[in-house]
């Protein structure tokens, strides 16, 4: 860490040059509590006898998921974790992310690692999470900055699909923010190469609202105002790949004009796709929840079946499938 201009350093140094036995106990410069001496810490080893600046050094390095439970430890922890210095230190350690990032990014798991792209206006970074090392790193820059995109994976390729244009792209005006909504970028994880410069787009000009990979194919749900279409992308055929129109999910009956639907889908094994559809209507909005419809697509038979509905109360549930 670079040496900072801390005004405390100089008097502190002078103090240390002239040892004063009376100061021995005042080892901790910033103490709201009585400064413990070395012998008192021997009786009770406590992290709370550290001065604020050292405790902040420690707290600012704790991974994000553990922060909420730390603020419940004691009042001092809660105050420190809410202080501007905490955020400043965290930013300097590179542990702070833009809040926008947490909202609408594309994520997918490939070969035991998690890849995240999009969702941020200021950065086009693609990040990789390694669960073994518990660490994130930036691996590449996406060719397009997308907000609200969906992620999918098939045969070791990370697909970043749909979303709105964000950031300062020279061509992007507010009016044509939707022009990438039907397109996708492909990133081959092993070689670290992005697909051809022209992004493949879903036929029919729909906005991609959900996608997942199963086997070597990517399945995409696209919305066309009051209609939803379902497509399969086959990357294997030729350089450009091929789109195949499939049976759309039977949710048109639930969609009403003025209503909104939110999709989330995930593959279950090699032959099934589960789609979670949140449909909000006037009645459900009054209840403060949305109707969650679970649909299962059988890839072999090519047909949709309706599963049990989601219990009332979920609003923006995400979906992950585990076979057991």
């Amino acid at each position: 860490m670079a040496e900072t201009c801390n005004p405390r350093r100089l008097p502190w140094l002078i103090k240390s040059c002239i040892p004063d036995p009376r100061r021995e106990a005042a080892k901790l410069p910033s103490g709201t509590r009585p400064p413990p001496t070395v012998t008192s810490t021997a009786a009770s080893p406590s992290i709370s006898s550290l001065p604020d600046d050292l405790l902040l050094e420690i707290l600012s390095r704790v991974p994000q998921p553990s922060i909420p439970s730390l603020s419940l430890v004691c009042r001092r922890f809660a105050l420190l974790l809410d202080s501007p210095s905490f955020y400043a230190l965290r930013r300097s350690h590179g542990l702070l992310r833009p809040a926008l990032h947490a909202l609408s990014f594309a994520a997918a798991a490939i070969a035991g690692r998690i890849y995240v792209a999009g969702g941020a206006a200021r950065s086009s970074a693609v990040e990789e999470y390694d669960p073994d090392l518990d660490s994130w790193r930036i691996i590449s820059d996406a060719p397009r900055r997308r907000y609200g995109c969906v992620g999918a994976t098939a045969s070791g390729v990370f697909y970043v699909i749909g979303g709105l244009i964000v950031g300062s792209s020279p061509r992007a005006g507010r009016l044509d923010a939707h022009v990438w909504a039907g397109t996708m970028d492909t990133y081959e994880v092993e070689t670290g190469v992005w697909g051809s410069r022209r992004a493949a787009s879903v036929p029919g000009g729909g906005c991609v609202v959900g996608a997942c990979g199963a086997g070597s194919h990517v399945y995409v749900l696209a919305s066309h105002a009051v209609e939803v279409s379902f497509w399969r992308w086959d990357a294997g055929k030729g350089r450009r790949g091929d789109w195949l129109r499939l049976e759309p999910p039977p949710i048109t009956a639930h969609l009403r004009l003025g209503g909104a639907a939110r999709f989330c889908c995930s593959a279950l094994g090699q032959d099934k796709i589960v789609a979670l559809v949140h449909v909000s209507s006037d009645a459900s909005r009054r209840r403060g929840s949305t109707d969650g419809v679970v649909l299962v697509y059988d890839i072999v038979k090519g047909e949709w079946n309706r599963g049990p509905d989601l219990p009332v109360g979920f609003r923006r549930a995400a979906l992950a499938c585990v076979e057991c």
Partner: protein
Amino acid sequence: MATIITKEQQEKEKMVTLVSSDSEKFVVEQKVAEKSHVIKMVMNCCGIESPIPVRRVKGDILKSILEYCEKHSKGEAQEVMEKWDKEYMDKAEKDLVFFHDLMLASHFLHIQELVDLIAVTFAGMLKMKSPEEIRQKFNINNDLTKEQEEHIMTTFGWAFQPI
């Protein structure tokens, strides 16, 4: 030429004596002691002829810190250093009292690299633990009122919900 070599040798062999709070004496090379920003400043202003008292650091802590400084003044390959640092931390963190004093002392002596290393290790002890586990491990009293606890729960509510 010959004079330069002897000068370098002299430079290399310049030793300095550090005295801990319990009057234990440590004789180390100047470049080792220089790892501490504070001791470096003292040596610059007062010279190295007389022993330098490090009144706020106990002998065992100072010994451990000098061990770190000595290793880090050699300029070895990064992988070697990382491995050594890890072993050094593994040994130090076993005794929390010692570890805690080590952090205070390295902060006091202004060895920022060591402070960073200890902070990372400390942070590792705090992660993935419930508030109660942390309070027990570090002997902390819960002085949050019910209202404050509720406020934190609502602020971070999403993180406590059972899956």
